[in-house]
């Protein structure tokens, strides 16, 4: 990676894979890439395209920036289909194209209490956020997950934050988790901000409870993306104003009340 670039703008770079490390289950892995010069914000994401993809798959794949430091850019990935499967089989030293940072990311000030709600892979954008937060004691972290907790980088979260995780293996657990979410959202003090990321059913619940108790909640959405830069209009989210807006460029983070979940 030798390009001279402006760190304040997104760019498309060619980087090497420094390493891949598997989490407890072979379906989860951390991808470490050459560091990028970007000034990015938690909740922003990148598009990845390995060199060998040629024409199939035709699209790159979007991933949250999990953690970024001087040594590497880290992405936390679950294998769910062909693209993530192909990425998981890449070798260190091989190259890929990466562009970003994309999207808006989460906004908050360092002295704001944060209630972070993450479901499954929704933990990804929060790892770096929490680890680099100047006041981790202001963070309360609620994490719902299906697989063994060892699959996720939950243990990395600062001990100074209050951290709760709840595994869901059946319908009863899901209700428990929903009860917990409702309670946490209700109890969350004025002046604090709720940040959420996870699967759509989870976000719907968060939206509902935040609305009920009139809380300042933000959520990061996942949609299939082709371009990632706002050009194709394939990833749109319906907003309360009645318009479809690009999730990639207007989001992926939205104010909870602005999102209309269709169907």
């Amino acid at each position: 990676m030798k390009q001279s670039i402006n760190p304040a703008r997104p760019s498309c770079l060619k980087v090497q894979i420094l390493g891949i490390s598997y989490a407890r289950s072979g379906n989860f892995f951390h991808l470490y890439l050459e560091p990028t010069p970007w000034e990015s914000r938690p909740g922003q994401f990148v598009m990845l395209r390995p060199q060998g993809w040629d024409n199939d798959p035709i699209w790159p794949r979007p991933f949250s920036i999990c953690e970024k430091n001087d040594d590497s850019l880290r992405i936390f990935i679950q294998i769910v289909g062909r693209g993530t499967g192909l990425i998981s089989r890449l070798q260190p030293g091989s190259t890929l194209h990466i562009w970003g940072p994309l999207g808006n990311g989460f906004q908050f000030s360092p002295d704001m209490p944060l209630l972070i709600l993450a479901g499954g892979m929704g933990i990804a954008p929060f790892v770096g956020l929490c680890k680099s937060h100047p006041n981790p004691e202001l963070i309360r972290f609620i994490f719902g997950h299906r697989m063994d907790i060892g699959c996720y980088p939950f243990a990395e979260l600062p001990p100074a934050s209050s951290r709760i995780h709840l595994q869901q293996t059946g319908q009863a657990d899901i209700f428990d988790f929903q009860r917990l979410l409702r309670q946490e959202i209700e109890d969350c003090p004025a002046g604090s901000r709720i940040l959420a990321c996870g699967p759509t059913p989870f976000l719907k619940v968060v939206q509902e409870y935040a609305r009920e108790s009139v809380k300042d909640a933000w959520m990061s959405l996942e949609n299939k993306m082709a371009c990632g830069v706002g050009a194709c209009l394939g990833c749109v989210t319906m907003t309360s104003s009645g318009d479809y807006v690009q999730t990639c460029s207007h989001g992926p983070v939205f104010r909870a009340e602005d999102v209309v979940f269709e169907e």
Partner: protein
Amino acid sequence: MDLKVNLGELSLKNPVMTASGTFGYGLEFTPYGRLEELGAIVVKGLSLKPRKGNPMPRITETPCGMLNAIGLQNIGVEKFIQDKLPLLPWKKTPVVVNLYAQSAAEFADLARILKSEPGVGALEVNISCPNVSQGGLQFGQDPSAAAAVVDRVKSNAGSKPVIVKLSPNVSDIRAVALAAESSGADIISLINTLGGMAVDVGTRKPCLANVFGGLSGPAIKPVALKMVFEVCRAVNLPVIGLGGIVSARDVLEFILVGASAVQVGTASFTRPDKVFSLVGELKELADELEISSWEAFRGSLHI
């Protein structure tokens, strides 16, 4: 070699244009390359009024391609002229406005609005969108309906060159091309997407809310190349070829069968800097293959 090319009145510094709907309003790509280095910028299809587009999901991946059913979501022609056009480098690179309307009269209105905009280099009449219930294929599949639309646009477009964009979803694309030519089109572009569909056997639902979508990407390149070849032999107008272009070699293939310029669509999703890098690669490859001029190479396929 000088990459410059003239499509009648429309002069391009190189034959690489973007394809409508795959390059937004152009500004989305400014972080990834210099817009003024492109042959031309073709923006998302614009209609008289803003359009909301189709419900989600709108896109799905297919082998070496994709389906889309965006439904022509756009901000409307007025807002484009006000908010986007002034930010585009139209003095250095022609900006082509792709037009969508549901009737010949609406097409005429669009042309009238755009004809006096100095920032607009040409109009591209989209009579080939498969993803809208009205005004797409009904013009593109019927030579006389196509001719009527072209005629109306042409007589309202002033001196702006009019490009007519053809649909591949026909038995014989030459018939529509000839109709467009005889009603005054200045340039022909082809192909738009092929009609297609994808389903999910798990949920038993179509992958697109619109059920049908338009197929694009490398998968369709052989179909596009054949139709461009056929149309180039049938008409006397300059032709812009597109469909599945991802490399400089692909660009040359379209020129070899007779195209004067090309558009790059789905490839801009593989990498946002793709279309920019194609210009440089094209120059290199043309030199490597000892192509002395576009005039000498264009349509020089040995049959």
